[in-house]
């Protein structure tokens, strides 16, 4: 698998360790595995089935207060005055804060300033649910009473929540200072477009002239929420000496530490953050909201403060994805060759600058080998919560639009939709629509597997249709720091800084066990607090297993170097004559014939006599994440009377590079598909004319329940990532990308109706069916 492109770029970031003899080469080195690819129980499982695992809200500190946040009921309002005096006087209230208690320490960093303002409104409330004040009191009842005593004098401003309305001339301005970036000459007037961006290559206009068939369509998708079952929760403690502790459910406690320290004006080293078990994140826990507020309350009260969001607050104030409006045009020749592809994507960002349309523009045509392609993205400001990442952020909406048009085009030229995609699929050497040239990739393989899959040939029932669609996600690596410590009994502690969102401790222990040559059970993987390891980026971008396994394998190689040195000392022979094999040090050469191999346990037992504790460390930027592709097949049954749709069969085919723990890889495929199905059929933020969110609860924002779904079949393909020692690619995100389009295509195949608005909820489906009936 050592392709040219990888050998040309040896990894040059070996940490300057005391034993720098190990070559830290991420190039694929292993394809024959003993432990990787097996399915052991996860190390944190027992605590999770017995109720013992501690999540964000399951932790308490002595003398802890209850924190609550007062939120704007208005979508857009000037805050003229906040009177907290009555609340402060209420018995049991220990602190009341507003933005005045959170001074600006961001030093001109606009993205951090936006986060600060999003945590606590500064003069203007920019969406329904925007925090305007907070209290800490001895109990929840007192805190609730105190919130009611805070008087906020609002001047309601005109608002805009709809993506298409926001870009119209004369729309209310969400940020009157916003001048569109990425446009030359620089606009002189403010608008709600924060940025224009463009990707592509070739000559799209010339390409369309060669087309025999062109399909053009416009699509809309509504805003969804990650919908993690655990609301945001933290316990914060700040002392007058400037030190602090934070217990929090997060996808990245190091990033939370850095952000909170900056926003609070604290030294990073003086704030220790511990990540709790996390009850789901999906991108929604990559961003601080309540944590700086809890810290500010604690600092003012000089007591620990526990702050948990209600479900209503989670929906109104935390992480939704973008609502979108997308135009797609694709042209092809009669033989099925695509000659040009063009898309314009408008994505909401909430009130702050984002890169959401940009990600949509990058991913839209990433599955295909296109000579002429262009995508243009517009970041649109609206009076909705600040957009946060949601599993392969922005890719599902772009794929919905593009994959719908791909199907329509295939049918117009009379080609099978799978064959049409195979003909145009990107491959190794293809220039991606977002710029670079691909290495070995799996889109073609997933399509070929879909074509052969028994699901494709299974009979369909009445009112049922079958659809398929493809999806892409980048994956990435990032900063990663990992320790391995060998205990005096030879057991191994693997300490990582990437939060485990779905079984990664098992996968990482498998990789380190593989590298050391010891049983899985001998390796205990822990997620460390911020005081224990160097900075780690958060668990996002499908990087948790990819990057921490890379760092873990390098740390294991460093530990093996030490183990060999120690064995050499024990044997009193040169270290070069010691090799590491099957978890043992072995003396190489016939002259050592009578030396029995030394186990880790034996070497560890003598550590005190051979140089002290045995450890291996690794600090890396894990570059070279392999891109990920998937093809999904969906069978949908629609009730023509009610418009209600039901998924009757579903298959996910995705490239994992190397599936370290196949059960958890399947789990990622199934979970992503289920989220995509919910998005496709039901989930939607509904805003009233007053700009208030009308469905901030699980009753009205309906995520799929058990009876909504069938079993979800999975097929794992393994096209190794040449830039990881074991060939691993991220697997967490791509599975949410294809379902929207696969289901829309299934409906089209069943009824001849092209659905262009997600979610395809019963009223929309019914309307489309009626429109089709009436011609």
């Amino acid at each position: 698998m050592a392709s040219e492109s990888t050998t040309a770029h040896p990894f040059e970031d070996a940490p300057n360790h005391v034993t720098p003899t190990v070559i830290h080469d991420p190039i694929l080195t292993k394809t024959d595995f003993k432990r990787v690819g097996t399915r052991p129980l996860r190390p944190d499982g027992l605590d999770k089935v017995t109720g013992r695992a501690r999540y964000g809200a399951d932790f308490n500190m002595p003398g802890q207060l209850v924190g609550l946040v007062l939120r704007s009921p208005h979508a857009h309002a000037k805050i003229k005055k906040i009177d907290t005096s009555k609340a402060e006087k209420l018995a049991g209230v220990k602190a009341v804060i507003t933005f005045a208690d959170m001074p600006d320490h961001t030093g001109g960093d606009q993205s951090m300033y936006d986060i600060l303002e999003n945590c606590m409104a500064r003069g203007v409330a920019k969406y329904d649910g925007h925090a305007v004040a907070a209290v800490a009191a001895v109990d929840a009842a007192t805190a609730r009473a105190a919130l009611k005593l805070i008087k906020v004098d609002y001047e309601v401003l005109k608002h805009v929540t709809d993506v298409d309305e926001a870009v119209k001339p004369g729309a209310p301005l969400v940020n009157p200072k916003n001048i569109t970036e990425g446009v030359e000459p620089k606009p002189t007037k403010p608008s709600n477009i924060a940025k224009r961006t463009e990707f592509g290559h070739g000559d799209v206009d010339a390409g369309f002239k060669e087309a025999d068939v062109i399909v053009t369509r416009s699509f809309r998708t509504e805003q969804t929420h990650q919908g993690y079952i655990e609301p945001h929760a933290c316990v914060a403690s700040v002392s007058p000496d400037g030190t602090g502790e934070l217990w929090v459910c997060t996808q990245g406690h190091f990033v939370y530490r850095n952000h909170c320290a900056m926003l609070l004006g604290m030294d990073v080293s003086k704030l220790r953050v511990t990540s709790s078990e996390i009850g789901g994140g999906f991108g929604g826990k990559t961003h601080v909201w309540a944590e700086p507020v809890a810290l500010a309350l604690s600092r003012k009260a000089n007591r620990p403060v526990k702050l948990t969001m209600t479900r209503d607050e989670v929906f109104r104030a935390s992480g939704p994805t973008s609502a979108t409006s997308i135009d797609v045009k694709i042209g092809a020749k009669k033989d099925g060759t695509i000659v040009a592809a063009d898309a314009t994507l408008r994505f909401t960002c909430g009130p702050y600058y984002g890169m959401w349309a940009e990600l949509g523009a990058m991913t839209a045509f990433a599955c295909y080998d296109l000579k002429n392609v262009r995508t243009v993205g517009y970041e649109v400001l609206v009076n909705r919560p600040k957009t946060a990442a949601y599993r392969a952020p922005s890719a599902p909406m772009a794929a919905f639009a593009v994959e719908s048009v791909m199907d329509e085009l295939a049918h117009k030229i009379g080609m099978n939709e799978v064959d049409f995609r195979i003909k145009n699929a990107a491959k190794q050497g293809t220039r991606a629509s977002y710029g670079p040239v691909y290495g070995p990739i799996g889109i073609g393989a997933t399509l070929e597997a879909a074509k052969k899959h028994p699901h494709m040939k299974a009979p369909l029932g009445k009112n049922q249709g079958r659809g398929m669609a493809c999806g892409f996600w980048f994956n990435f690596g990032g900063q990663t720091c990992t320790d391995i410590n060998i205990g005096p009994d030879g057991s191994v502690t693997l300490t990582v800084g990437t939060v485990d969102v779905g079984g990664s401790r098992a996968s990482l222990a498998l990789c380190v066990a593989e590298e050391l040559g010891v049983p899985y059970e001998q390796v205990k993987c822990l997620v460390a607090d911020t005081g224990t390891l160097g900075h780690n980026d958060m668990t996002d971008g499908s990087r948790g297993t990819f990057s921490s396994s890379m760092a873990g394998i390098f740390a294991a190689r460093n530990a093996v170097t030490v183990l060999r040195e120690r064995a050499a000392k024990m044997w009193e022979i040169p270290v070069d004559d010691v090799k590491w094999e099957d978890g043992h040090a072995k003396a190489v050469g016939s002259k050592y014939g009578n030396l029995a191999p030394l186990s880790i346990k034996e070497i560890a037992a003598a550590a005190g006599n051979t140089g002290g504790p045995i450890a291996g460390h690794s600090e890396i930027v894990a570059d070279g994440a392999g891109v990920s592709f998937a093809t999904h097949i969906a069978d949908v049954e629609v009730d023509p009377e009610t418009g209600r749709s039901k998924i009757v069969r579903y298959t996910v085919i995705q490239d994992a590079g190397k599936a370290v723990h196949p059960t958890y890889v399947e789990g990622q495929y199934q979970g992503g598909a289920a989220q995509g199905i919910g998005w496709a059929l039901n989930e939607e933020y509904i805003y009233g004319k007053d700009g208030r969110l009308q469905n901030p609860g699980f009753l009205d924002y309906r995520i799929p329940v058990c009876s909504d779904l069938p079993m979800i079949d999975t097929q794992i393909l393994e096209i190794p990532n040449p830039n990881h020692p074991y060939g691993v690619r991220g697997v967490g995100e791509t599975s949410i990308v294809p379902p929207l389009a696969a289901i829309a295509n299934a409906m089209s195949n069943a009824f001849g109706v092209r659905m262009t608005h997600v979610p395809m909820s019963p009223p929309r489906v019914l309307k489309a069916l009626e429109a089709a009936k009436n011609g």
Partner: protein
Amino acid sequence: MAEIHLWGALRPAAGGASVVSVDAKTIRELFRKLEDTYPGMAPHIARGVAVSIDGRIYRDDWGKELPEGSEIYLLPRIQGG
């Protein structure tokens, strides 16, 4: 001289060009020269730019060398869920 391909948001800062030539041996030198020549790119670079070298994407790792004749694409730094 390396040919540096720009994604759309950077192009206005380079007078609309999609490719610019820069004499740089490392990512750090590349960023420094881009900022000197095209000041409009500075905020993007400060926000985080990824560099694709012959198809392999690096974060803004200053010391990374740009091999002679390699294909360099600048991309926004990806966020994920």
